[in-house]
């Protein structure tokens, strides 16, 4: 099989749902900015891109009508550049990258873009018209369960305490605050944001600016402050808004090439996608996904966890992220993930608790972060993984190119 190389991988900032910078910016506009930037930074002509796949968890309304094709036209690609929408909920963005990589590996394609989009402000979680199957829910509604409830289930079933979750959340915020302050998010594309403002006469006009930071990071978070938040999903629960991922608007895109294309366009690839796998788990504790997906990834590639120098494990909820790290033997040694540790290798610049989890975008967003981190640290092997609503886990393995 051929190789598939990650050439350019970028993301917009992640901005808070409702109150954040992108609340009134259409999802297509976010995606357009980042895709155009990926092509621009690679130094390609647009016609070189054969196909665009866009991960999206709620591909309807503004994100509907096959946003993959819509965006290819919006960005000004020629008619010959095709597009598709990919949905595997929280791994959609990575799924899109993996699908493109597979097409390249099998020789069906040479230059492709995989990315992700989710404006959780504009298309709400659950979609605009949720319609669970009436008979199915009466027999077993687990596949429709709310994500918060699954996080409580994980915390309860595996004894992940409130204190552990708050501590984990605190470190996520501190790692992100550090990265923001030191300007470590090299993959971040300043993105035009628009907000409509009413003037004194009652007329409305758009105000546009370049948003160049993730606006959900809370530099001033304290353990004490996190400790005061009320449970969000259960009467006596432990999962709060503070130790859960933020609901966020954002987009990300990755340009992938075959070896022939790399040579043809004379570009220097960052990494290659070595492997991608998905596994299924119980729907009502979907958060455990990475605890099964990562070992499966290791097993199928014949690698050991110790070989991997850096991890991006999506923080849908602190409870599930902690459980997954525990299962891989990486939780108790806190220096592997705390903000004050130089040895940290997990979510080194913060995770979704601080940076947000724009569902369908997350897989593509974590890829771009991982590329930055692997290059900065010279780490050979990196893993990206996440849990997936409905009860799944996905994991991808990347190898840094010399």
């Amino acid at each position: 099989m051929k190789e598939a190389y990650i050439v350019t991988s970028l993301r917009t900032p992640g901005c808070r749902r409702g109150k954040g910078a992108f609340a009134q910016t259409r999802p297509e506009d976010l995606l357009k900015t980042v895709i155009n930037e990926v092509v621009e930074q690679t130094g390609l002509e647009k016609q070189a891109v054969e196909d665009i796949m866009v991960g999206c968890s709620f591909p309807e309304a503004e994100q509907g009508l096959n946003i993959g094709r819509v965006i290819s036209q919006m960005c000004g690609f020629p008619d010959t550049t095709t597009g598709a929408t990919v949905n595997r909920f929280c791994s959609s963005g990575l799924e899109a990258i993996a699908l493109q990589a597979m097409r390249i590996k099998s020789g069906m394609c040479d230059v492709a873009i995989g990315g992700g989009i989710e404006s959780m402000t504009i298309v709400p979680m659950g979609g605009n018209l949720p319609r669970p199957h009436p008979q199915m829910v009466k027999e077993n509604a687990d596949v429709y369960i709310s994500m918060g409830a699954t996080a409580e289930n994980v915390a309860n079933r595996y004894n992940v305490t409130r204190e552990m979750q708050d501590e984990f959340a605190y470190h996520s915020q501190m790692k992100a605050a550090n990265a923001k302050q030191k300007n470590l998010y090299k993959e971040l594309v300043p993105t035009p944001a628009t907000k409509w403002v009413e003037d004194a006469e009652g007329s409305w006009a758009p105000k546009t600016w370049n948003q160049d930071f993730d606006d959900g990071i809370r530099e001033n978070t304290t353990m004490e402050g996190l400790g005061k938040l009320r449970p969000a999903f259960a009467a006596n629960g432990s999962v709060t808004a503070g130790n859960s991922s933020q609901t966020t608007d954002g987009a990300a895109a990755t340009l992938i090439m075959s070896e022939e294309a790399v040579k043809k366009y004379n570009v220097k690839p960052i990494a290659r996608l070595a492997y991608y796998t998905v596994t299924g788990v119980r729907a009502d504790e979907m958060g455990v996904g990475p605890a099964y997906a990562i070992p499966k990834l290791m097993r199928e590639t014949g690698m050991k966890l110790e070989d991997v120098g850096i991890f991006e494990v999506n923080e849908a909820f602190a409870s599930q992220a902690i459980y997954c790290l525990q299962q891989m033997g990486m939780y108790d040694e806190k220096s592997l993930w705390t903000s004050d540790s130089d040895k940290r290798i997990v979510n080194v610049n913060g995770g979704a608790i601080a940076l947000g989890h724009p569902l369908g975008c997350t897989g593509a967003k974590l890829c771009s972060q991982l590329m930055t981190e692997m290059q900065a640290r010279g780490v050979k092997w990196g893993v990206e993984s996440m849990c997936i609503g409905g009860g799944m886990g996905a994991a991808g393995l990347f190898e840094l190119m010399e």
Partner: protein
Amino acid sequence: MQKRITKAAVIGSGIMGGGIAALLAGAGIKTLLLDIVPFDLSDEEKNDPKARNRIVEKGLQDAINSKPPLFMDKKSDPQLITTGNLEDDIDKLADCDWIVEVVVENVKIKQELFSKVEKVRKKGTIVSSNTSGIPLKDMSGHLSDEFQQHFLGTHFFNPVRYMHLLEIIPGPKTDKAVLDFMADFCEKYLGKGIVWAKDTPNFIGNRIGIQGMGKAMNAMLEHGLSIPEVDAIFGAPMGRPKTAMFKTSDLVGLDTMYHVAKNCYDMCPDDEMRDTMALPEFVGKMVENNMLGNKTKGGFYKKELTEEWKTIRKVINPETMEYGEYGKADFPCLQEAKKKSALSEKVRAIVYGDDKGAKYAWDVTATGLIYAANRIPEISDTIVDIDNAMKWGYNFEMGPFETWDAIGVKESVEKMEKEGRTVPEKIKKFLEAGNETFYKIEGGQRYFYDFDSGAYKPVPVSEKQISLYNLRQENKVVKSSGSCSLIDLGDGVFDIEFHSKMNAVNREMIEFMIDAHEYVSKNGVGVVVGNQASGMPAPFSAGGDLAFMLGLAKEGKFSEIDDFIKTVHQSILASKYAPYPVVAAPFGLALGGGCEVCLSADRVVANADLFMGLVEVGAGLVPGGGGMMHLWQNYIRYKPQVAKITDYSGFFIQAFMHVAQAKVSNSAAEARNSGFLRPADRIVFNKDLLIGEAKKEVLRMVDDCYVPPRKEKFPVFGREAQGMVWSEMLNMKTGGYITPHMETIAKRACYCMAGGDVPQGTQVSEEYLLKLEREAFVDLWRTEETQKMAEHMMNTGKPLFL
């Protein structure tokens, strides 16, 4: 020129000012709320408009956050209020039609304020003071004649939204037309009960009220009673609010009460009972120590939380000034009173008893009656205004003279004289002339005794009011059963009046309503469903008769419950499709069955203070009177004009949640926002005018060629609702937010409202939905859990979640 109030200003944003502003906004009047610039601004802040408005902003925010809510619609009413300060924004008073002053009780500050107001006020603008004690002549004497002609006292009571009383006090030069305009405006637009007061210290309510309070406190020490003992007597058994004497003080604030008492003491040097207004020493000490009642979390009473999170109630001991736990106070006279049903008999049993409590009650009552009689004509010309002031401003069931009638004037005067009390000459004359009661009814008209002329005069009633009580006396009752009557309101309009306990809907009423509609279809042009129950909040109808159904359920007579609900539906539909208009006139509590009666009416004319909701799930049930169907119809037919299939989930979830969470509105405005009231339904501010307005509405609808609603099929959300609700139930269950039987009830309610398992958008008939409702209702009664929940609700008034 046509007088009109389109914009008002309230100066002073404390609890009263905020309350008046909230009331004005609720009535749809643009309101400017002003207060002073804070004294303690830094140099930097002095140029910051935000800092300069800090006091008024806080006042407004406090009003928005108040509990019980002062605003009727917390979202949209505050938007009618603009805030400002007296330095930067005083010019804005120029476009106001009414300026009400509610600043600190200091004559000099008020004088200066009015001088400033005079400079900017446009001619013709009405200015009033909400002072509770300062004579109007003292604050306005220095102003121009034109100002004084438009100046009066408007004394609201706290909390402004809920207290019916408004004392209007003419100033020395107030124009009669201005007074009449304001009385009419405040009665109709603001819903207040108007009492005409004279410009004397503390006017009527607080003058009589504070003497009563002072006497009760001083006599408590003399008779050796405890605080809980006093409250046990001067609460419900004597026709006083449940908070009685001391809990009311805690509610009002000891500082306020102390201030009112002191004001009265200082300003009434010749008052023959001045001593009773000097509050006992321990009360003064409490005020000094900032033990002011609920606002300082401790007054005469105090709640403490144990380590086990149990609340324990404590009361202060006036001698030691320490709090201690207390038990239920009781006296033989209270036991006697309990056996009586009419309030007048209860009061008689108490004041003529011979135990310690009874003797105390008599002393306080006798002193109060004599005091009230002596205040005529000093503070008021009529007994009616004094009685109304105490009923509307202090929530007494009976004013002093009505109380006097209740215990027998002759009998009580004999007792007073035997004890050496000074009975007022006018009372002696009244008795000598052979009179027995201060009020009497003759030929359907209520008369009061006028001391000035020594003759009975008709009790003045606004022509807009209809009194069902008076109509009863005039033999206008057409039909009657134990809990329901049909009363002829004139002009072919008939009123269905509930009069069961809490006006709960029972079998008798349901059957009566069917008969009543028969009668009206032959003899009338329309129906009002309304009553004039009193209370805080008063029950239009507090729900369905649980005891009746629980009895059947316990005996396993489920088919009888089924029959009953069939009859309910028959009655509901008879009203809905009657060939004449049916207008419901709810106020106060309109819960469960009471709410359903309104939902099935052609139109609702609601009092602004309306606590409406379908609360059946709290008793383990689903609504059984078509409530879910009608609420859903309101959503899809009225909320937007056209609801499309894609809009259904939004509407359905809202409508369903009102039932599943037993949500109750805090006002008629809220009931409208939540879909219980429809766009054409009306809101009337004055409860006293409600029946009259409802009758007018019937006649208007008749005049507009009324035809009953068409009986059409309508779309439901069907199985798609089941999918949404059942999957959400899993989340609630996982989160521990719902108990197993509540989940069963919620799912059943969803089934009823959604029309079962049909595909979304299916057009169904009302009969089909009512059948689903009836089946759900009966099935739930079959369960042990529902029976337990209903029994618990009956016994405690609180839901038990199983």
